[in-house]
């Protein structure tokens, strides 16, 4: 008997909840006052590279403060997602932290690539590593697994521990393109970490390790290595002596128009490029 009473109680409460939900939803049907601002609003969606994402968010914030009627949604996903999103039109703007592949351009010839900033990639090691200068060829041989001991590049007799990003990462793609070249692959035995931050932590805590990082992530927990005698610093990247510098791209499907164009113009303006530089990247102007 008790159980049946409980059941009835349950049913009644369920019905009440349903009625409540129905009541709530009916109040928000057309006719209810909306909070739409009088000015025309437009929304821009931006998605892609997680390297460009934090920068794009700051740029979007600055642009939205100046243009009250505009909303910009910035999402991550990775460079490949950025290219795809722009090509398929799922986003107004795609972001990519690497060169756009020929295959991607043949697949979607309408893609318009706008370089909004440049970013250096630094080779970093554990702070106790005595080596402080390598050539591009040495870096390539180390990451391909041809050189496996620090003594071969002037260090101690210790095995080199490779730390790399995962397949598909823009930082990895840029590193492969600028350091490894077409046919040389990063050794499969390298430790893979899924972000710049975790690469830094791993290299900082693993003796004899070597990895690569976006300039924006450099700090004193890791030792940055000079390439051909040139230190990975912003001035060296700007004057062209530091060799591992990649473009940070924004992509649109066809010529940008309207608000999208206004946003891209803002990024390339003096104010926009100041944000780029303040964030640790290299201006394209």
């Amino acid at each position, binding site marked *: 008997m008790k159980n*049946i009473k409980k*059941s*009835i109680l*349950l*049913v009644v409460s*369920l019905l009440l909840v349903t009625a409540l939900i129905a009541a709530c939803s009916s109040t928000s049907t057309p006719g209810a006052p909306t909070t739409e601002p009088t000015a025309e609003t437009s929304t821009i969606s931006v998605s892609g590279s*997680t390297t460009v994402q934090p920068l794009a968010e700051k740029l979007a914030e600055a642009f939205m403060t100046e243009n009250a009627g505009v909303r910009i949604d910035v999402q*991550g*996903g*990775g*460079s*490949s*997602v950025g290219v*795809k999103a722009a090509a398929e039109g799922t986003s107004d703007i795609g972001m990519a932290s690497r060169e756009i592949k020929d295959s991607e351009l043949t697949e979607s010839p309408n893609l318009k690539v706008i370089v909004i900033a440049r970013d250096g990639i630094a080779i970093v090691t554990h702070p106790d590593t005595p080596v402080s200068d390598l050539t591009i060829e040495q870096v390539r041989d180390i990451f391909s697994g041809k050189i*496996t001991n620090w003594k071969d590049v002037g260090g101690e007799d210790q*095995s080199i*521990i490779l730390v790399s990003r*995962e*397949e*598909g*990462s823009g930082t990895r793609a840029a590193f*492969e393109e600028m350091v490894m070249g077409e046919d040389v*692959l990063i050794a*499969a*035995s*390298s*430790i*893979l*970490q*899924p972000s710049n931050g975790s690469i830094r*932590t*791993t290299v900082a*805590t*693993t*003796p004899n*390790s070597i990895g690569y990082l976006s300039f924006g992530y450099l700090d004193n927990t890791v030792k940055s290595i000079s390439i051909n005698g040139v230190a990975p610093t912003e001035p060296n990247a700007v004057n062209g002596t530091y060799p591992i510098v990649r473009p940070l791209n924004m992509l649109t499907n066809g010529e940008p128009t309207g608000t999208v164009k206004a946003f891209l113009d803002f990024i390339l303006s003096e104010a926009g490029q100041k944000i780029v530089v303040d964030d640790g990247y290299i201006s394209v102007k």
Partner: protein
Amino acid sequence: MSGRMIADKVVKYILFASAIISIIIVLAIGFFIFRESIDAWTEIGVSEMLFKTVWRPGIDQYGILAMIAGSLSVTFGAILLGVPLALGCAIFLAEIAPEGVQAVVRPAVQLLAGIPSVVYGLFGMVILVPLIRNIDVPGNSGYGLLAASIVLAVMILPTIASIAEDAIRAVPENYRHGSLALGATKWQTITRVILPAGKSGIIAGVILGVGRALGETMAMIMVIGNSAIMPRPLSSNPLTFFLSQARTLTGNIAVEINYATGIHESALFATGVVLFGLIIVVNASARWIIRSQKYVEKAN
């Protein structure tokens, strides 16, 4: 029919619907993962995927055998370390510990199950990896199967311990009395009578632990190194196998899915299908063992 009866019927159908919905969710997930993976199976080929060890999406190599080996090796390591610990724990709780001690130890062991996986990973990364790095073998980074196995052993401990404890408690009291009356010591009773009698329940616990181990993701990514290679000994000593880096099936999906498009994405879903299949087999065999034990009990 009275109102009460109608209410009863209605509730019955609501509960039935809830049960059906859970089944539909499982089927929908399975269907979705499989549908997304079809491109990979057809374009890359089933044997190419399952039996090739090279995983390099950049040059269209999609062999997941290295990840299958990685998942199985780390699970094996975790079982090797975790089962004796869990079994010891279960025997202690069920047979030896006085009530007061049980009241402290049991919740403590259960608490292990509630710790988020990322915390285990952090512990492994900050404590275990630097410790393991002290083992002087060339190429030993600390990240690898050993660190992952230790972390995983602790993670599966509560699962195995609680099921094994139930199995030991389910052994009829007169078995114990009989053994002790024949002059056996307590230890002899445990190893010769109780453990054999509770065997299938214990095995089922271990298998459920295996299922838990295969599915673990976050903690593994943080300590295993994620290199897509077949685990291999670092030196001539075969034990250095456990210092090798590896990648698990779960880690393969989690590390790469953010950036994957096209066939690469589909291949990651195919990894998910393999994992799904492995876990179904593992869980089904645990159920089968538990059920066959129940029949034995009934027969007794």
